[in-house]
């Protein structure tokens, strides 16, 4: 007992009052070196992420014959939209791009419309079966996409919607829904309950209290979550390539044509699929920790 009480002042004392100037200077110097090293590490890790992105970007915006050049120039001397133009106007690309957008928007709308109410119920009501429901939603994460795609493909053939954008959107909604439910529940938890109850006592119906009070406060978070759902669908390739033959989404088209496609096509495709991420992650950067940090608990 006494040991613990005494230990602290003995070690801590030199830090503040009676430290000789030399020692203090040494500590300040060490602190400065530490900060410098920290920023060197920060820059090095950033370069690890950015350098490959830089390389694919200058490849995608070189003229087509320069894409085949060897050795390549790390600092390019000519820019051109020729390679991107070739990719976008290749057979099927515009159609696949449109399909990807339709699938991702449908997924976003469906999973928000169906998932957000469940998230709200989890956040606001204490009801029997709440924990069981939460656990069920959490446990869906243990099941791989691979196992859903194949039986769904068989069902979609029976239902006559195989090889349509709707079959892919239905599948992506099933993948995104657990995520949407958990995220929206944590977003609604972040809206103070008092405000909603105040609205109710002031004569709002539950619906108007939700629309006029809760929704405006939850909207930024909900928007960030929906954007992430869009990304999830935009990037998904296994289900998309299993569920379609002609109505490909962009990743499904690129994957199925990978072996036959020339290098400029591939590199432009990779840049095209990657580019939205640069913007989207920037837009939702403030919400990232909230979104994934909370879901992981």
């Amino acid at each position, binding site marked *: 007992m006494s040991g613990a009480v005494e230990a602290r002042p003995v070690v801590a004392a030199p830090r503040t009052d009676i430290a000789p100037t030399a020692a203090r200077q040494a500590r300040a110097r060490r602190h400065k070196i530490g900060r410098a090293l920290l920023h060197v590490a920060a820059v090095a890790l950033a370069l690890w992420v950015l350098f490959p992105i830089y390389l694919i970007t200058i490849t995608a915006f070189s003229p087509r014959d320069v894409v085949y050049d060897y050795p390549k120039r790390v600092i390019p001397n000519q820019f051109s939209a020729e390679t991107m133009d070739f990719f976008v106007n290749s057979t099927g690309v515009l159609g696949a791009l449109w399909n990807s957008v339709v699938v991702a928007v449908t997924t976003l709308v469906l999973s928000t419309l169906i998932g957000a109410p469940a998230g709200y119920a989890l956040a606001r009501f204490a009801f029997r079966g709440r924990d069981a429901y939460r656990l069920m939603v959490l446990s869906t994460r243990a099941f*791989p996409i691979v196992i859903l795609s194949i039986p*769904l493909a068989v069902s979609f053939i029976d239902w006559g919607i195989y090889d349509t954008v709707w079959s892919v959107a239905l599948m992506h909604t099933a993948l995104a*829904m657990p995520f949407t439910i958990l995220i929206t529940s944590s977003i609604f938890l972040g809206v103070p309950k008092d405000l909603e109850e105040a609205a109710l006592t002031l004569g709002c119906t*539950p619906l108007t209290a939700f629309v006029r009070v809760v929704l405006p406060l939850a909207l930024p978070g909900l928007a960030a979550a929906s954007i992430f759902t869009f990304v999830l669908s935009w990037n998904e*390739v296994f289900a998309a390539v299993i569920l379609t033959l002609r109505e490909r989404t962009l990743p499904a088209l690129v994957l199925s044509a990978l072996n036959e496609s020339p290098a400029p096509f591939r590199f432009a495709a990779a840049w095209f699929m990657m580019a939205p991420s640069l913007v989207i992650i920037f837009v939702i950067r403030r919400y990232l920790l909230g979104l994934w940090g909370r879901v992981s608990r």
Partner: protein
Amino acid sequence: MNRQRFGWAPYALLLPSLAYLAVFFAAPMVQAFGLAFQDDGGNWSLASWRAMFTDAQFREALVTTLILIVIIIPVQFALALAMALVLNAKPRWPGLWLYLYAIPLGVSELAAGILWFAVFTQQGWLNSILEGLGLLDRPFIFLDYENQGWLILTIVLAEAWRATSIIMIILVAGLQGIPRDYVEAADVFGATFGQKVRRVILPLLRPSIQVALILRTILAFQAFAVVIALAGQGMTVLSAEAYRWYSDYRDPHVAAAYAGFILLLSVFSTVLFLWLLPVRQEQAT
């Protein structure tokens, strides 16, 4: 108050999602096992499983999948921990670094695979740069199916580049939950940086590490576009075999057996991590 006034409301709100997940999640899951354990005539049989286990590609796919996971996950964790510690040390412009480190979070497996293909292909960036530096006389062939070691290394790099972000985000969120006092107390007692990480930070991060491990491992079992993009036909993994059996051989039964096998491995690894890294109740929140 809510409970009395809206006794039915939460159930009404849950119902659509429950119905949706029943039709598009639970039912296919059951059907998958039906497909895997039945033949074309609908009779119960183990033929698909036998076909899978005796498939010439099965062994290679399983071994490659496991090797990739065993190498990729530690590399990703080391990298993610470095990023998380940098962010946690309050550098200048914290938002900028977080954004840059998180960019790959939105990049697909396929795009990342092609991106690294551009680096490693014979007339690609790595050879260009190495030649420019005078380290090579002529292009080295990294992506050669006779050289599985290089193929694995390139896939590991691509996956470490792409999927480290998600672990980083989970670890940063976990680090924010560690009270400053603990680390400061270690400072007072003169702990070195390494001691602080090993003795204070990592043990307190255990719940986040467990979640990230489980999530990443399940996703790693499904990775296949990155393998196809980098190795083409030169290398195969379990989910690529499921895709091949469905699309090329038109046999949903064997494909479902592969998918079921991946599910078993996923569940097994989840249980393994829960058992290896038990999280005490008071830590779990």
